[in-house]
């Protein structure tokens, strides 16, 4: 790990957590409360305020800790490297692609259907998790696994275990 990444592990999450807690706290006043007979002295705002406040304090704690670490790092003569976004994306290419295809899989499963989307997803995900130099040998087994799993799971869960897996375009074929 790069030396300066250690304080970034505190600064970035600290900022994100603090901002998220502020957004969360700003939403609390908009919650409708019940004030009629039998209402509790502590309304449904209290606990969200409690958790939101606690998260804000913790976020600031982590942020301040990170800033102190950074100051100590600079004082010790360390050089701060600039974050290279392009390099960062390239390093995490497989992770980003995995998230994108997973999001597409669940997003399109409703309109397209479980079987076609599962075949596409499994095929793509297996390839992403395989080093590119081994792709040639992976195409056929990946396709077979994708086809068998998609059809087997659909039949088993939809028709035997009554899980409402989306039919999508299969509806047109009466499946």
């Amino acid at each position, binding site marked *: 790990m790069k030396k300066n990444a250690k304080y970034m*592990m505190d600064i970035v*999450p600290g900022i994100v*957590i603090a901002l998220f807690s502020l957004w*969360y706290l700003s*939403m609390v006043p908009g*919650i*409708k*409360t*019940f004030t009629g007979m039998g*209402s*509790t*002295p*502590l309304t*449904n705002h*209290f*606990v*969200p305020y409690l*958790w939101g406040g*606690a*998260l804000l304090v*913790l*976020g600031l*704690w*982590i942020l301040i*800790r990170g800033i102190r670490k950074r100051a100590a790092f600079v004082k010790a003569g360390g050089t701060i490297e600039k974050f290279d976004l392009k390099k960062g994306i390239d390093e*995490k290419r*497989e*992770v980003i*692609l*995995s*998230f994108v295809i*997973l*999001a597409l899989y*669940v*997003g399109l*499963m*409703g309109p397209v259907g479980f079987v076609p989307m*599962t075949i596409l*997803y*499994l095929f793509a*995900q*297996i390839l*992403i*998790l*395989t*080093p590119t130099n081994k792709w040639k040998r*992976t195409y056929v*087994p*990946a396709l077979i*696994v994708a086809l068998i*799993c*998609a059809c087997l*799971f659909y039949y088993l*869960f939809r028709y035997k*275990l*009554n*899980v*409402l*897996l*989306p039919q999508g375009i299969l509806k047109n074929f009466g499946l």
Partner: protein
Amino acid sequence: MLLEGLMAVLQPFTIILIAIGTVVGIIFGSIPGLTATMAIVMFLPATYSMSASQGISMLMALYIGGISGGLISAILLNIPGTPSSVATCFDGKPMADKGEAGKALGTGVVFSFFGTLIGIAVLIVLTPVLCDFALKFQAYEYCALAVFSLSMVIALTGRDMPKGLVSAVLGALLATVGLAPIDSKPRFTFDLFQLNNGFALLVLLIGLFAISEVMAYAEGVRKDQSFTVDNNAKIKGAGFSLKEGIAQIPNCIISALIGVGIGILPGIGGGVSCMISYTVSKNISKHPQLYGTGIMDGVVASESANNGTIGGAMIPLLALGIPGDACTAMLLGGLQVHNVAPGPLIYEKSGAVVYAIFFAMVIAAIFMMLFMLLGMRFFVSVLKVPKNYLLPVVLVLCAIGAIGNANMLFDTYCMVGFGLMSYLMIKSKIPTVPMILGFILGPTFETNLRRVSQLASSDKFWSHPIFCVLMIATILVVIFSTRANLKEAKRAEAEEANS
């Protein structure tokens, strides 16, 4: 009645039903996304035409198999099959990575069996006494119990306490989504009806553990990582020696009793019991620093506790008719379908069926151990399946589990969202496990805190000794855990400075 119950269970057909139920339960428990509750829901209609003893015996077998099966994927894939096996991952997976998957599975199976037996023994012997005790738990006590359990997070966080606390608070914060307790006003639902019931624990669990496991593997694709885990060690017997097993007996008894205690209290469940017993086991151990590195003790603590919870959860169900979680709520439905009315008079009205349930639980526990030990070589062979094929297939099963949870596609969107959140948390060195505790205990804390606020004017806290004891225990846990964590953090800092 006792003999009548025994004879009902010892019928060949009933034994076959228990065997089938146990196998199906293990399968449901071992697949991430499918739970014991789903298995019971799916098989409940199949029991309509059976006699009460047969039907309920099968449901009990599904319950025991379902809770126990979760350890398989927790150990082999680092993805807990059920919320009850979250803590099994902590030491189970490192053991599998060291080539001791067989030993980890054997330990989990055998001590799940003993945990179940201890739970059943307590259920049979102490039901009336423990029911009286459980009835003493009202708003004050539940509130204090939630605070006490949340304080365990500090012990779970290790050297970075603020980040562990962030995780727990985030979990509690996620649990505020949906209809508020007591007044049922919507909170943070953004007018989406799918969020009215809040997020499902199962969906959160899949996002936190299954997706992050795939992403962790994806990160190493370009590095020279192996597709499979090396596991050539031959498995003898249960995978561990008699001496090792005997050394774990105190750990097993303590953890199972914690499991029983938590099981008795409605709304807490196996997910919390495994983590609390793991923390307790770590704190009282002579070698706490080895926890999380792949030792038997961690697996024993988690598995004895979650199976002990089964016996505990049955106590209020049978004696008071109060289901503690979704699983026991389904069992309550099963009892009612078969004209068994749980409550203080259950022994008088349906004594034979109650004893049949006890015997069925014992037989199901024996079958569970037998089937899982026999299947151990097969389970371990899962590690031989290349991970680039295995993980995507597991993720598809998880998506099916998320859809099946409430038959809503929306839950898969949440699953991906939680997966992304989990990945970012792991990258920021924020532990994800405390989030589960916060998520489970947050609603219990809020509901009872608001009830306490209503009661406080007429019912003072000092008239609740259990509340006072739990609050004192909380203070002690916070002080000692914080001290231990600070020591650990200082030691780590010194090590870092030296290196």
